[in-house]
C-alpha cells in the first residue's frame, strides 16, 4: 500500500524521537514505582510528550486535583492554538476526526505542516496512518523503557533531564525562527518573578497569567504601532536591546 509506505518514510524522524523519548518516559515512570501497564495506559490515553514527563511528578502524590487540571491546561495551552491551522483540513475526515484531533501532538502537527502529499495518494488515509504510526512509536517506546528500566546496566540518574532538553530544543527552535524575542523575554521574566514570589510549588499558573497579560498588552501596543508603520520599527528596535 503506497499510503503506508509514504507515511512510514515520512514518520521515520518521529520514530527515532518518540522511541527514545518514550524510553526515557518509561524509565522515569518505572523509577517512580509504576509498571508497564501504567506506561501503556498513559501513553494510550494521554499521549502528550512533555505533559507525561510533568505528570510523573504528580503521581507521587501531594498535589491537589485542581492543580493537576490547571497544570495540564497550562502545559498544553499551546495545543489550543495548533488546531486553528487544521479546522478546514480536518472537516473532511469523518469518523477519524476525533482521533486526529486527540493525536495532534507537537510532532504530528509539525509533520502535517511540513508535508506535501503527492497527487496519487489518498491524503486523508495517509494523514490518519501518520498519526496512528506516531502514537504506536510512542507507546512502544514507553512500554519498552518501563520494562528495561530496572535491567539497564548503567546508572540512569539524571535521565529526567530529557524533558528539560526537549523544552530547550523547542525554545532554541522558536528563538531562531521568531521575528521578535519579546514574547520569549516576557515568558522568562514572568517565570522567574513568579518563581521568586510563589516558590517552586505553585508558580506556573501565576506565571502564565502574567505572561498572557503582558503579551496582550504588548500585542495591542504593536498592533497600534502597525497602523503608524514608521514608528513600529523604531519601537521594535528599542525593545530588542
Amino acid at each position, binding site marked *: 500500500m503506497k499510503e503506508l509506505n509514504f507515511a512510514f518514510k515520512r514518520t521515520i524522524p518521529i520514530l527515532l*524521537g518518540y522511541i527514545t523519548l518514550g524510553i526515557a518516559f518509561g524509565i522515569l515512570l518505572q523509577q517512580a514505582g509504576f509498571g508497564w501497564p*501504567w506506561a501503556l495506559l498513559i501513553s494510550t490515553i494521554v499521549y502528550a510528550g512533555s505533559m507525561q514527563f510533568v505528570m510523573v511528578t504528580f503521581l507521587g502524590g501531594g498535589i491537589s486535583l485542581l492543580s493537576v487540571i490547571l497544570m495540564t*491546561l497550562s502545559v*498544553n495551552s499551546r495545543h489550543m492554538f*495548533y488546531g486553528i491551522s487544521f479546522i478546514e483540513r480536518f472537516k473532511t475526515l469523518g469518523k477519524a476526526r476525533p482521533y486526529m*484531533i486527540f493525536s495532534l501532538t507537537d510532532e504530528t502537527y509539525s509533520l502535517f505542516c511540513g508535508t506535501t502529499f503527492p497527487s496519487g495518494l489518498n491524503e486523508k488515509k495517509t494523514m490518519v496512518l501518520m498519526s496512528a504510526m506516531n502514537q504506536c512509536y510512542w507507546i512502544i517506546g514507553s512500554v519498552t523503557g518501563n520494562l528495561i528500566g530496572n535491567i539497564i546496566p548503567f*546508572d540512569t540518574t539524571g535521565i529526567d533531564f530529557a524533558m528539560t532538553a526537549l523544552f*530547550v530544543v523547542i525554545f532554541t*527552535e522558536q528563538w531562531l525562527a521568531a521575528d521578535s524575542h519579546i514574547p520569549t523575554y516576557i515568558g522568562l521574566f514572568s517565570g522567574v518573578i513568579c518563581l521568586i514570589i510563589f516558590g517552586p510549588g505553585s508558580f506556573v499558573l501565576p506565571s502564565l497569567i502574567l505572561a498572557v497579560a503582558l503579551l496582550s498588552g504588548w500585542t495591542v501596543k504593536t498592533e497600534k504601532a502597525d497602523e503608524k508603520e514608521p514608528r513600529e520599527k523604531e519601537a521594535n528596535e528599542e525593545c530588542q536591546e
Partner: protein
Amino acid sequence: MSGVTHTLVIVLLVALFTFFTRLFPFVVFGRKGEPSHMVRRLGDLLPLSVIAILVIYCLKNTTFDALSGFAPQFIAIAVVAALHIWRRNNLLSILGGTACYMVLVQYVFV
C-alpha cells in the same frame, strides 16, 4: 482514595484535559469561522512565552548554595542549545544534552 484509584484519577484528568486543549480550537473557532486577528496573533506568540516558562519550570529546584546545585543543568542547557544551533537535529540535541547532564551529575559534580 486508595493509591491506585488516586493515580487513576490523575491519569484520567490529565488525559481528559489534554484532549480538551486539543479539541478547543475546533469547537470554538470551527463554528464561528475564522478566529479574530487578535486571537490569531496571541496564538502565534503565546507558545514562545509558554515554552520559556516551561524551561524555568524544569529549573525550579535549582539552588545557588553550591556549584552542584546549578552548574550541571546550566552547562547541559548550553550544550543542548549549542548542539541545536549547530545541527538543528532534535534527537541529537536531546540525547547529547541528556548524556552530558548524566555524566555531570554522576561523575563531575557529585
